[in-house]
């Protein structure tokens, strides 16, 4: 709904000439970087649906608004440069327009979005789309930017020459939207544009077909723009200077590195106060609920399962929102394509192209959109390789694991005496670098063995610099946060509750008593052994003494309950496998439990250590989970589970493993094969195990 447009002229006609009734299907078509998303947001507001086209994973964005009583269904087509598609997402745009996309209604209207600062090239697609036989309106975006650069566009003259209405709009200021909506309602099939057929026929017959078409269309465009545009060259001196700096060999590279560092440092420091506030709120809710519910399975389910699980989701919203804010800002101002330009040579070095940069960068937020973004890569080999490498980029689901363990177990000290260079931030950057380095090595090897073939062509626009549109940026952040909460969040919550059940049942008192008895025996043997003078013996004696107190007995009973639960049995089963990584069986449990999604590992740790350990007491500044983890000890000993090498080994494992069912499902769908997800999971798990094992073994010797 759009109040401005809806409310306009209520006394106007009830509907368009072709009759009221059902919603009109309106497609937005245009080149990439034309302000299409900005126009979509201005017209329809928040999309009614963001999903995929049926059968393919190109993003489909739908919205609805009402104008003069007539509902309009807006569909935002993927950006394309021409109607002869060169990539799967361009193909979707063309298929929808031509009514060849199964399950998508052929559009009743097409709005061709053209960028007023780049008319010449934008009119190429427009000249093709006008001939489709669909009622057409041309929306002239960025006309304010064009005007500010001294480019005057005679929209009426252009409309006469194109044979369809041309409406200048300034989407962020909502200018021209009413006129555009009016034009959409009353649009007709355009007549043949003036001189287009003649220009196409006049092209040099000696040239091959595609060249003849391009020569003919550009000749027509040049004639069409005569007298329409006051000044053809649209580059500003400021643009030149910014570009000169940003793509400079030295300064551009430094700026790139600084930008990336700023992104990750800000996620670490700016989000912290918000996260502390959310943590405190969750603790308060848990405490309030605990008071009101009677002791027992229900209270345990609500407090330890539901609230703890939900808390571990919500607490990371500030970081995810902040990361997407950066991505949206860099994308909106035009920096992302400069980054691809700067990075291309490096990616060529490992057998990829600069076009893989954006999918791989997006994978730092989440591998799923990253893998979907690979549809902009025309070359099938490059695309498959990028899909397989995307899960190695540290996604936002790993960030919580990194942040929690780094914050809790890496000392907050300066590196090399530089006060602002904190060790925690360095470890965080190193973890991100690890994924990148492993992906680079894998790409290098794979393109020289399994994936041989020529590198793909690289034709990439460098859009003009502009201010990011606040509404578009906010929408991007909102959408990402919401999809995390609703998509990942519900999975995490569900798995938290299932895991609570797995760690709570079966609850056999006899098995628990037997387990406590065995533990007591083990401690007695240790304490009485000849070597009992050592630290181990002393710890055994202390633990034995603790067993004598009611609190100590209760803790032991809890530990025993966990060892005899379903989850405990599974964790103990794989303990020999995780020992070389420095993990105890509970960490093994958490690794098993995190298979559906990596972020689940925190919920699992919360549940496992909540149920298994006595309250370690208050400690300033640390969340409840951190306090639990810091106090966790190996079974029957006071030796701490979480030391620096163990924390590093866990983080390295999670940096490289494929613990994410959704990613594996998307890989299967995108590659059209069940084989690639299996390959991806198996290879990443083996890689993660070896890397974590090396980290722990080296770390416990040298740290």
């Amino acid at each position, binding site marked *: 709904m759009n109040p401005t447009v809806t409310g306009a002229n209520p006394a106007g006609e009830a509907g368009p000439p072709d009759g009221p009734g059902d919603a009109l299907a309106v497609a937005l078509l245009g080149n990439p970087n034309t302000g299409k998303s900005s126009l979509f947001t201005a017209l329809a507001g928040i999309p009614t649906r963001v999903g995929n086209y049926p059968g393919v994973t190109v993003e489909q964005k739908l919205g609805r608004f009402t104008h003069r009583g007539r509902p309009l269904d807006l569909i935002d087509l993927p950006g394309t440069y021409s109607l002869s598609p060169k990539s799967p997402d361009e193909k979707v745009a063309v298929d929808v327009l031509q009514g060849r996309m199964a399950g998508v209604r052929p559009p009743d209207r097409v709005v061709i979005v053209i960028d007023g600062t780049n008319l010449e090239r934008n009119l190429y697609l427009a000249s093709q789309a006008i001939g489709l036989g669909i009622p057409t309106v041309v929306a002239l975006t960025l006309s304010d930017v064009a005007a500010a650069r001294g480019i005057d566009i005679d929209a009426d003259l252009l409309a006469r020459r194109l044979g369809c209405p041309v409406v200048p709009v300034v989407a962020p200021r909502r200018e021209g939207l009413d006129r555009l909506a009016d034009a959409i309602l009353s649009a007709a099939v355009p007549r043949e544009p003036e001189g287009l057929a003649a220009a196409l026929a006049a092209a040099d017959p000696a040239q091959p077909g595609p060249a003849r078409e*391009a020569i003919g269309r*550009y000749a027509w465009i040049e004639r069409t723009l005569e007298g329409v545009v006051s000044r053809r060259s*649209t580059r500003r001196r400021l643009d030149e200077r910014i570009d000169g700096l940003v793509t400079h060999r030295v300064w*551009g590279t430094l700026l790139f590195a600084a930008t990336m560092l700023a992104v990750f440092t800000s996620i670490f420091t700016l989000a912290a106060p918000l996260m502390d506030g959310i943590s405190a709120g969750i603790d308060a809710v848990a405490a309030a609920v605990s008071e009101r519910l009677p002791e027992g399975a229900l209270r345990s389910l609500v407090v330890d399962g539901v609230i703890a699980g939900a808390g571990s989701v919500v607490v990371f919203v500030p970081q995810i929102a902040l990361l997407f804010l950066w991505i949206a800002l860099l994308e909106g101002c035009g920096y992302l394509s400069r980054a691809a330009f700067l990075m291309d040579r490096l990616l060529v070095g490992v057998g990829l192209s600069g076009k893989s940069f954006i999918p791989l960068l997006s994978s730092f937020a989440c591998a799923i959109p990253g893998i979907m973004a690979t549809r902009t890569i025309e070359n099938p080999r490059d695309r498959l390789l990028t899909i397989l490498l995307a899960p190695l980029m540290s996604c936002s689901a790993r960030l919580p694991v990194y942040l929690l363990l780094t914050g809790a177990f890496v000392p907050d000290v300066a590196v090399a005496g530089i006060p602002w260079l904190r060790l925690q931030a360095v470890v965080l950057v190193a973890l991100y670098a690890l994924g990148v380095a492993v992906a680079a090595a894998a790409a290098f090897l794979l393109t020289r063995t399994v994936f041989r073939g020529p590198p793909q062509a*690289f034709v990439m626009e460098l859009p003009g610099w502009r201010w990011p549109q606040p509404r578009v940026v906010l929408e991007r952040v909102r959408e990402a946060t919401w999809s995390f909460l609703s998509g990942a969040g519900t999975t995490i919550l569900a798995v938290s509750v299932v895991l609570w059940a797995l760690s709570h049942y079966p609850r056999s008192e006899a098995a628990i008593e037997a387990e406590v008895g065995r533990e007591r025996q083990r401690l007695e043997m240790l304490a009485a052994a000849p070597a009992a003078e050592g630290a181990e013996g002393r710890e055994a004696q202390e633990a034995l003494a603790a067993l004598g107190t009611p609190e100590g007995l209760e803790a032991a009973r809890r530990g025993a309950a966990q060892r005899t639960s379903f989850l405990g049995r599974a964790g103990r089963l794989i303990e020999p496998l995780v020992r070389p990584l420095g993990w105890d069986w509970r960490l093994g449990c958490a690794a098993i439990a995190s298979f559906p999604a990596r972020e689940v590992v925190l919920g699992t740790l919360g549940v496992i250590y909540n149920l298994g350990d006595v309250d370690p007491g208050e400690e300033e500044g640390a969340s409840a989970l951190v306090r639990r983890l810091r106090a966790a000890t190996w079974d029957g000993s006071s030796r701490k589970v979480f030391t620096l090498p163990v924390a590093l080994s866990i983080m390295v494992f999670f940096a490289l493993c494929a613990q994410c069912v959704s990613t594996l499902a998307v890989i299967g769908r995108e590659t059209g094969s069940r084989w690639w997800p299996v390959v991806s999971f198996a290879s990443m798990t083996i890689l993660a195990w070896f890397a974590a094992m090396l980290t722990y073994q080296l770390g416990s010797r040298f740290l």
Partner: protein
Amino acid sequence: MTSLREIAVGATAEVARVSGSDPTSERLLEMGFTPGVQVRVVGAAPLGCPVELELRGYRLSIRRADAERIAVLPAVVRRPR
């Protein structure tokens, strides 16, 4: 004939022809590399490739290998850097 690959940074050249008929050549034509158009070589990425070009009032980047497909008339140096 000279190719766009050989044009120095800062120089402008006129496109004569795009050779080849694969999707890459087709895309280059669609992006406006038609005979007679003026193309300026704006710069190059830190490792020399890709190159940044300006034509028809906008900028794009292509690899040196693909610039070889674009035959140009002898360069006209407009604004040497």
